[in-house]
């Protein structure tokens, strides 16, 4: 009875697993097929594969450009969030002035506001400010985010202030306390924040899409989405490009799984 149950359980688990990972495997499979090969069905007996599609993509330097854009914007936004979310979270967690309370109110407010409301005005304002179609448009608005502030604030509040007091008595300056005492203590929370921000940014499509126009500034998701429109769909190369977009995420997922899961259970990712 017990053995039957276990077998059944694993059968269900495996069936679901196949459904969940098949599309990604399919993507890699198609990306490894030769140009012109039939891609409609999964032929298990066909084990031929070629890296040519990936090589093609890197030969024209457009793909390298898109990768650079995604990485540059992603790293800039992530570093900004680590520093700024920490600063803002610290002042909200440790100071009790009215300004700080109001600051927290605005954080909660924006946390709850759906982002679609700023699509049109952000476009208009970016054009007016001369930031449209520049890296600034992709970086500046996202350098600090309410979920990140909230996450780090919760963490700082769980740290007893005695460490800071001790450092103060030793004559440490406030800035030194902030960056040499508290910030290192917050490393676990900041790691969670960093991975969450990086993933959201790496996968982000809507705002990078509406705030840019030139091909040279496109991030990978934007480039992929717009690649489709040009000619009859070239699945091999499109899936190879998708593979390139997914691999960094997969690698980070394997390395930082704990932090990713912690970030998700601490609060939803705002898109």
């Amino acid at each position, binding site marked *: 009875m017990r053995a039957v149950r276990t077998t059944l*359980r694993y059968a269900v*688990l495996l069936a*679901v*697993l196949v459904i*969940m*990972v098949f*599309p*990604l495997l*399919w*993507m890699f499979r198609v990306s490894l097929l030769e140009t012109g090969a039939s891609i*409609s*069905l*999964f032929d298990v007996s066909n084990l031929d594969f070629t890296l040519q599609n990936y090589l093609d993509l890197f030969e024209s330097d457009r793909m390298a450009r898109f990768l650079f854009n995604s990485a540059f914007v992603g790293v800039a936004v992530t570093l900004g969030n680590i*520093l700024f979310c920490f600063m*803002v979270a*610290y*002042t909200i967690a440790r*100071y009790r*002035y009215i*300004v*700080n309370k109001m600051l927290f109110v*605005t*954080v909660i407010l924006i946390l*709850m*506001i*759906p*982002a*679609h*409301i*700023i*699509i*049109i*005005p*952000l476009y*208009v*304002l970016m054009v007016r400010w001369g930031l449209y179609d520049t890296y600034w448009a992709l970086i*500046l608005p996202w350098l*600090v985010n309410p979920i990140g502030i909230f996450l780090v604030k919760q963490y700082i509040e769980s740290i007893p202030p005695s460490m800071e007091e001790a450092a103060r008595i030793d004559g440490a300056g406030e800035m030194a306390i*902030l960056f040499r005492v508290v910030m290192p203590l917050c490393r676990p929370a900041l790691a969670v924040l960093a991975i969450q921000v990086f*993933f959201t940014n*790496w*996968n982000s*499509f*809507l705002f990078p*899409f*509406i705030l840019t126009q030139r091909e040279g500034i496109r991030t990978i*998701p934007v480039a*992929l*989405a717009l690649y*489709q429109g040009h000619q009859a769909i070239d*699945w091999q190369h*499109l899936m190879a490009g*998708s593979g390139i*977009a997914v691999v960094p*995420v997969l690698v980070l*997922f394997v390395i930082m799984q704990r932090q990713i*899961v912690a970030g*998700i*259970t601490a609060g*939803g990712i705002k898109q």
Partner: protein
Amino acid sequence: MRWSKARALVLGLPWLLTFALFWLYPIVYSLIIGFTDKQLLSPERHWVGLDNYRSLLSDPAFIASLKNTFIFVVGTIPFTTVIALALALLVNREFRGRGVFRSGYFLPSITSMVVIALIFTNLYQRGGYIAYLASLAGLSVPEHGFLYSDSTALYSIMAMDVWMAVGYYMLIFLAGLKSIPGELYESAAVSGAGRIRQFFSITLPLLRPVGLFIVVINSIKSFQVFVEIFVMTKGKFDTSTMVYFIYETGLTTKFQFGYASAAAYILFVIIAVFAAAQFWLFRRKQVVW
């Protein structure tokens, strides 16, 4: 003391600037232009009062996007929530290889929506994998594939969305399950309650707050569905949603900023009402111990 207050403010400055420049200002700005006929090509803008709102409500394209958005929200969230809970229960207990299954189920959630949408465009096309499986199962497949038919396109995108989201909400349910004290189950077992009874009298009621959280954040997200529509159908085949409508009217061809902003505010109000209603519904049935 003064100095300290100044420092508190300086530390908060990054958020204060972001809030003012990239949230508050745009939100107020679009509220105002929603009452004007502002467009990209006409330099002047005129105050038109509620005209945009009035024309929206008699614009068939807007009504269609409203209808599709509701179908999307109402049609995906129950499935996503129930499947996510089922998966969470499936991988909650300790067993060999649990981590592999959890990660596998979660994998689609960390993948870019653009990539997922492209893969499914391939799977859904004529002669594609899903079409093949559907015909094996004896289902009729639209002539040009699932995404090229008014009757299947939106539902196909919805199915993909459920598939993509369940792993993410499974993780949140798992966190909720972990917070239920084990003693409750022990004492229930002692007093003779079976597995099913335990599920309905302990697990489900105690998961209510997590369930509320999931339904609320999922509906806020789903009301704003855009990327998959853009990538898979460009709003054709009766799949245009509200954010797609906002994009199309505001940022393509005529760039009707005022009109699109008014549409964005209507969606904003709908989301707010929906979220409030969900809170109210769930709160009322709160279990009293």
